[in-house]
């Protein structure tokens, strides 16, 4: 008996081990296959992260160089004066806005004909013209300085290019040719002398400018209506503030030092908090991500405001109220939306929705809606509406899951206490699934913020922070987004250039944003599971 048992065992083991691949048993092969699949996805994720970092990390060094050149070549110096000129231009725009308002006032409320209205505005036009001309002394100065500073920057760029050329030649082993590349170092002190020498001229021009402004503003024409008069007073006040800033400009110019080092933090802060994204400019490139972040957030916000009620509402309907027949029809319909390619949605947005919304905004009895009527067909609102369509299936499906997870017993208990269906939904079902619904909304947000094609096609792609002083009407302005800018510009940048790297950093930012949103959603879901018990 003792001898027969081991014989059986060996037979059994031999049978099981008969299949071997590279010395692995069948069990091992299965393990390797499935384990391998899991490992591959982790490796891919790690590679993507590494690649993003490698390409993006060079940006900050380059950005610092970029800022250093900006200072060395005197562009920064000239920009002090340019800003002064730009501010004046902004005030001029205020005046033209005021003219439009007066014109409307004359034609709509007073019932004057166009010619009469123009005649009535003659004195105002005269005033506006004079106001526009006051900046003349500064303008002349700026255009001279701009040319000089650009020339210095150009020289510097050429020298940098030559340096690169020589390095490449040396690397290729062509010593003689490398030696032939002549590099003349730039002495910024010498180069900047003519620019800095204009300081007395500036003082004079600035004083002249201030004198002219005061003279023009002293006899501003009276406005035909109370509301317009308030605006005129506001204009006067803005001008007073503007002129109060002149001494500061002079001080900036006097104390400016081309050799002051650019702090490392500025390479980061000028990116993260920069209010301008300006590339391929003749003057100076800026890589400030704020306009893009604001654009992305605004579009996503509008999308969520539309998608959350739609998605959560229909989830509640399907889960709690609908008949089985309705469920069978509505659920696939909503889920089908996610099958529409986003480029098709974008196309639809341009061709149909943008037009339709604009036409709607021009309906006269809707003019009380903030921002209506508007003329930009592609704007935050259009993109937000379409993105909402993309977020709805995600929010709907996940919210419905969350509602499904609410134990039936809660519902029964509520009904048994004499609650109506609505009371049960509002007081029991929704609170019990709230964390699930919130995480559904967050994942919807993640979906929306990463969406590219729709915003690229429909958001209007104007790289500027929208004008929040317009109040709610801000949603009728065009914006550009983080995803859109990458898709639009990545194809045409020079590999390894600062612009290229800047786009990668935008990608990194997006990556971390999505990561944070997903992490938050998962945390909330986990807490929710525990609380239901």
């Amino acid at each position: 008996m003792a001898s027969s048992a081991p014989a059986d065992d060996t037979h059994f083991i031999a049978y099981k081990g008969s299949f071997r691949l590279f010395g692995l048993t069948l069990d091992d092969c299965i393990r390797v296959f499935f384990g391998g699949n899991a490992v591959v996805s982790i490796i891919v994720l790690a590679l993507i992260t590494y690649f993003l970092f490698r390409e993006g990390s060079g940006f900050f060094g380059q950005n610092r160089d970029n800022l250093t050149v900006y200072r060395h070549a005197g562009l920064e110096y000239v920009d002090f004066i340019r800003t002064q000129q730009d501010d004046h231009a902004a005030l001029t725009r205020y005046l033209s806005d005021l003219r439009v308002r007066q014109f409307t006032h004359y034609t709509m409320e007073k019932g004057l004909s166009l010619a009469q209205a123009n005649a009535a505005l003659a004195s105002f036009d005269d005033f506006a013209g004079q106001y526009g001309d006051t900046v003349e002394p500064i303008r002349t100065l700026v255009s001279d300085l701009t040319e000089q500073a650009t020339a210095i920057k150009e020289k510097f760029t050429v020298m940098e290019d030559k340096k690169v050329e020589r390095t490449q030649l040396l690397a290729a082993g062509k010593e003689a040719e490398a030696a032939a590349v002549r590099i003349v170092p730039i002495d910024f002190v010498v180069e900047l002398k003519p620019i800095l020498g204009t300081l007395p001229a500036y003082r004079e021009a600035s004083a002249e400018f201030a004198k002219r402004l005061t003279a023009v503003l002293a006899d501003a024409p009276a406005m035909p209506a109370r509301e317009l008069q308030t605006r005129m007073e506001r204009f006067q006040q803005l001008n007073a503030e503007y002129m109060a800033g002149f001494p500061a400009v002079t001080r900036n110019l006097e104390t400016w030092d081309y050799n002051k080092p650019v702090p490392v933090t500025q390479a980061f802060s000028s990116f993260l908090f920069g209010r301008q994204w300006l590339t391929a400019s003749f003057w100076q490139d800026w890589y400030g991500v704020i306009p893009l972040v604001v654009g992305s957030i605004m579009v996503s916000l509008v999308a969520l405001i539309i998608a959350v009620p739609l998605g959560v509402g229909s989830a509640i309907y399907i889960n709690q109220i609908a008949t089985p027949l309705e469920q069978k029809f509505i659920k696939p319909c909503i889920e089908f939306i996610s099958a529409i390619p986003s480029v098709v949605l974008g196309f639809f947005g341009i061709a149909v929705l943008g037009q339709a919304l604009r036409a709607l905004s021009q309906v006269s009895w809707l003019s009380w809606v903030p921002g209506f009527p508007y003329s930009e067909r592609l704007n935050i609102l259009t993109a937000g509406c379409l993105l909402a369509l993309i977020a709805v299936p995600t929010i709907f499906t996940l919210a419905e899951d969350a509602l499904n997870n609410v134990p039936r017993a809660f519902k029964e208990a509520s009904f048994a206490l004499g609650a109506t269906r609505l009371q049960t939904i509002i007081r029991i079902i929704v609170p019990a699934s709230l964390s699930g619904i919130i995480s559904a909304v967050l994942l919807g947000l993640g979906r929306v913020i990463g969406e590219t094609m729709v915003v690229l096609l429909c958001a209007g792609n104007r790289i500027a922070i929208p004008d929040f002083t317009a109040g709610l009407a801000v949603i009728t302005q065009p914006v550009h987004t983080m995803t859109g800018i990458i898709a639009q510009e990545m194809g045409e940048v020079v590999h390894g250039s600062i612009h290229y790297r800047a786009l990668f950093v935008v990608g990194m930012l997006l990556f971390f944003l999505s990561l944070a949103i997903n992490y938050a959603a998962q945390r909330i879901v986990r807490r929710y599971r525990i609380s239901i018990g």
Partner: protein
Amino acid sequence: MDTLAPAPTLRPPSAPAAASSAPGSGPAPAAETLIEIDHVDFFYGAVQALHDISLSIQDKKVTAFIGPSGCGKSTLLRCFNRMNDLIDGTRIAKGSIKIRGIDIHRPDVDVIELRKRVGMVFQKSNPFPKSIYENITYGLKLQGVSNKARLDEVVEKSLRGAALWEEVKDRLHTSGLGLSGGQQQRLCIARAIAVEPEIILMDEPCSALDPVATAKVEELIQTLRTRFTIVIVTHNMQQAARCSDKTAFFYMGKLIEYADTRNIFMNPANPQTEAYVSGRFG
């Protein structure tokens, strides 16, 4: 009637309140018979769950429904507050159920009002994921009561009525889900009595509880019988014997025997009942 009534748990004002509804609602016999079930056939889709059930349940008594699984006792219980309405495809094909003479399945009956008067305690304790206080006040808030003093009073009264007050009075605002199984079930009973129903339906209230918690709930049923009409579905025959005045035995969707509890257990008239209560099947 050996009520173990712990004096402080039942406060006098509740007794008249419960009793006051009785006299106005019909002639003297109606006070005796509260629920009148008349030849009821019930279907889940095409499956017939109840066959021609007739019985009358008496006011301020504990009635137990016993029988093997799937015999239809829970189904019948859930007819009394129309909880079966929540399940698609259910219908009463024949017969009627009357509470105080009113056919509760008539289309003009307000189900919400019905459920306020017919409370229910479920097999698995199901407190809402809210605080103990909010659990108790839920039903009242539905009815629009928002007076804090009144709510406080009802919470205390209901919890005392459910013999839970002493255990939870210091943590009224913690989650009801933090209580033990037995406490949760008593919380559910407290929640049901907070809206002052006339009838309390209990669907196997002790099947998920340990013996000690079961004893407490049974004790509670004894104290509640003076104020409420209780219908209890149970698998546990000793429980039916211990707490009920009348017992109905169901088998395969039919009512086999309905009589005083003592008779059912001591000398059943039907051999099937005899076989079941003596433990020979089921």
